[in-house]
């Protein structure tokens, strides 16, 4: 295994308060460059918290996280992260194109470069004609595609996705999963993805490894390697190996 791009070393997260919650206890995980990692588990298992700790949206109570050999904070300041949330989090006063340009504006890209990249990204997610529309004019699936385009616009090396398809219907969801894999393959620069989900089939279909977590306190139970060949498509979903792996993950989830 090549040197880990993300290493999580005995990390705990405790929310102090009137009733103290241990969101994560002693979590360790190594992620290789270009790897697609799925975090799965029931609500309260700390999968989103782990993602937020890696992205420096929260700080661990103890333990250490290194990202590309740096602290998560430094990586955030170096703009290594593209984040996609469960809701699209589009600014409603901005057009679709301006939403995709938002990170580029913050990062000081020149005007024509911004437009160029935004156009390319919208093309990539199949929304080339919708740049001048406002978010409310798009369906939920299309909005989430905009938020993926926005996350990819500045070419971050790490993509953090927190249940991005959780609010979508099953059909849209499966199509989005395939599109995500296509985009990930197209970018070709070895983007590392951490993908939080509570759907077993989604985790198996997308990832290289499924990290199974359990609650109270949040911890990693098992890591299931997914040896399905890539590129994956509709035939992957119908292969016997796909179902075996789903069963394997489901059983790990049941054992807790």
């Amino acid at each position, binding site marked *: 295994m090549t040197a880990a791009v993300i290493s999580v070393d005995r990390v705990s997260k405790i929310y102090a308060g009137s009733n103290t919650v241990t969101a994560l206890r002693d979590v360790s995980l190594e992620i290789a460059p270009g790897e697609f990692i799925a975090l799965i588990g029931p609500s309260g298992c700390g999968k989103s918290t782990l993602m937020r700790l890696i*992205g*420096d*949206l929260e700080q661990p109570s103890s333990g250490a996280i290194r990202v590309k050999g740096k602290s998560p904070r430094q990586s*955030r*300041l*170096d*703009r290594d*992260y*593209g*984040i996609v*949330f469960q*809701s699209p*989090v589009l*600014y*409603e*006063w901005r*057009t679709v194109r301006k939403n995709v340009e*938002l*990170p580029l*504006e*913050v*990062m000081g890209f020149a005007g024509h470069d911004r437009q160029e990249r935004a156009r390319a990204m919208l093309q990539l997610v*199949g929304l080339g*004609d*919708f740049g001048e*529309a*406002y978010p*409310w*004019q*798009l*369906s939920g*699936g*299309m909005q989430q595609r905009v938020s993926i385009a926005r996350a990819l616009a*500045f070419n971050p090396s790490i993509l953090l996705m927190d249940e991005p398809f959780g609010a979508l219907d099953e059909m849209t969801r499966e199509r989005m999963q395939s599109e995500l894999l296509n985009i990930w393959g197209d970018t070709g620069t070895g983007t590392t993805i951490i993908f939080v989900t509570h759907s077993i089939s989604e985790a198996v279909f997308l990832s290289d490894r499924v990290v199974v977590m359990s609650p109270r306190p949040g911890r990693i139970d098992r890591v299931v390697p997914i040896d399905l060949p890539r590129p994956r498509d509709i035939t992957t979903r119908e292969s016997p190996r796909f179902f075996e792996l789903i069963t394997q993950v489901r059983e790990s989830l049941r054992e807790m």
Partner: protein
Amino acid sequence: MREEVAISAERRSIRRRVRVPFPNWATLINYARRAIPLLTVIAVLFTLWEGSKRLFDISDQKLPHVGDIIAVFAVRTQGGAGPLLIVQMLNNAWATFGVAFGGFVFGGLLGFALALLFANVRLLERGLMPYVIGSQTVPILAIAPMVVVGLSSMGAPVWIAKAVVAAYLTFFPVTIGMLRGLRATAPTEVDLLRSYAANTRQVFFKLRLPAALPYLFASLKIAATASVIGAIVAELPAGSTHGIGVVIINAAQYYNSRPPALFAAVLVAGLVGLCFYGLVILAERLIIPAGLRREE
């Protein structure tokens, strides 16, 4: 994709709305349709007014005819030598509008500043908010003479003293509305900018301020009419020479000899508030992008 077909149909209709040349039949009919409820209300009010006069036998002294109120606008002032009453009233209304506008700007800026302060420093909000609220429970009629007389004696121009009274009424809704607006952002919206390593200034201008604008404009609409009230009240203390408030006072003094004049003055005062309100709506349309107004 199917969803895209539905969306593109909607988009086409939006484009059509935008590119319509101004004078065409559809727009004119649309305007006429919008005017119908307004005209209906005027007709109903007229009927109620004249009907109750007839029904309850209310004298012209207590409730003049609508026609007489309109007619009084055309009377020449100063015993026939001066300008038409409507011209005189509009001149005074314009003076009031100027004072109200000054107070609106001053109070708006103050409210904006207070909201910024409170949004960033919780302690200041806890300490000062009770006084901000308390300031609005004191009757403006009691405050106005103190402010006008006090500031004038300190050498301030009279219009500034009046504008301060108007500002007194306008800063409050702006503080409350803007504060609410500044807190209207979802945590994930802030997280998003954080993940781009955005600085505080960028978070303010790219997220907090635009997110607060709808709330700001809602409170500016209240502030607009309140500032006119403030300006009129500030004109009531003795010493004012012009303003629609002075016209109202004079008309009230000579009510017995010419009742319709008071009603006419009140009508013009209402018009000032209405115009101001319209200006705020105009500003809102210019600032908030058209694509956002989904209900139209």
